[in-house]
């Protein structure tokens, strides 16, 4: 499992984030607009990418800046 590789894969899907690996859990810390993740198809694509990198679970961290992740630029 490589957090860096998954982050790179997610960038190609248009999702900018830092990936924190906790065993087989990938925690995505958004670094840009992730509004697309409100859509089931977008989440499915992320899950496929993570599975391909050996992760069984993917979670999107709700950021600490007071803004919800889907509203960030």
């Amino acid at each position: 499992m490589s957090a860096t590789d998954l982050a790179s894969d997610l960038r190609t899907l248009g999702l900018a984030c830092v990936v924190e690996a906790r065993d087989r859990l990938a925690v995505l810390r958004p670094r840009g607009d992730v509004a697309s993740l409100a859509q089931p198809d977008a989440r499915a694509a992320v899950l496929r990418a993570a599975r391909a990198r050996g992760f069984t679970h993917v979670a999107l961290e709700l950021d600490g800046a007071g803004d919800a992740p889907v509203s960030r630029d």
Partner: protein
Amino acid sequence: MALERERRLIAWLRDARTVAIGYSGGVDSAYLAAVAVEALGPDRVLGIVGRSATYPESQWRTASDLAARIGLHLLELNTDELNDPNYAANPANRCYFCKAELWSVLVPAARLHGMEVVVDGTNADDTHDYRPGAAAAREHGVRSPLAEVGLAKADIRERSRARGLPSWDQPSSPCLASRIPYGTAVTVERLQRIGDAEAALRAIGVRGDLRVRHHDDLARVELPSDEIGRWLEPTASRRLRKAVLDAGYSRVAIDLRGFRSGSLNILGGVRGGGE
């Protein structure tokens, strides 16, 4: 099919004559209790609840309300699995030690109250999952009539609805320790934090299956998959995050797949998917 299985359950219970039920107020044990009271009469059935920090307070209120509604006599006993180091260390077979403690308290109490057979709410689906607690039940002579007559979860929900039981669509509610990854110690403080977080999420309107999975400082929230999009919207996600932070976590994340029964079994590489 479900009705036919229910008839077999009624016959099974009548053969047993008197039963003590390990009762949690969940879908399965509530249904079993309702059928047993109807089949045997209230004086031949005793529901026994094992109370500890792993049993959410909100569930106790639901369980006692439902018992009163169906005429089930209840006996409340304290269990102390958290003081068993085998349990508290949280190995993959943690449920064995929990159930061993539970049945070591409940079975003698059932005998004292004149109940001949002690039963639990294990259903036919459960027999396909990784359930180390089932071994402890067998060791204490506890029977599982729902499983023995082939009643699966869907059957139980269908028959519960037909009987007007409010539990028919209640989400599954395994003990709070199921939110803590194997190998991470089970403590009263962690159970309290998880319970508070889930109660707070219910209070802001989270519906259906919900789990707050404990990953040290991070709470990973599993929601029904069709609810995830709604809670990723800006206003909703702020409310969700605040609710979990107020319960004592410092970081909050929403699982992108959503609720999975036995999620931590999968994460821990343990076979089976049930909790």
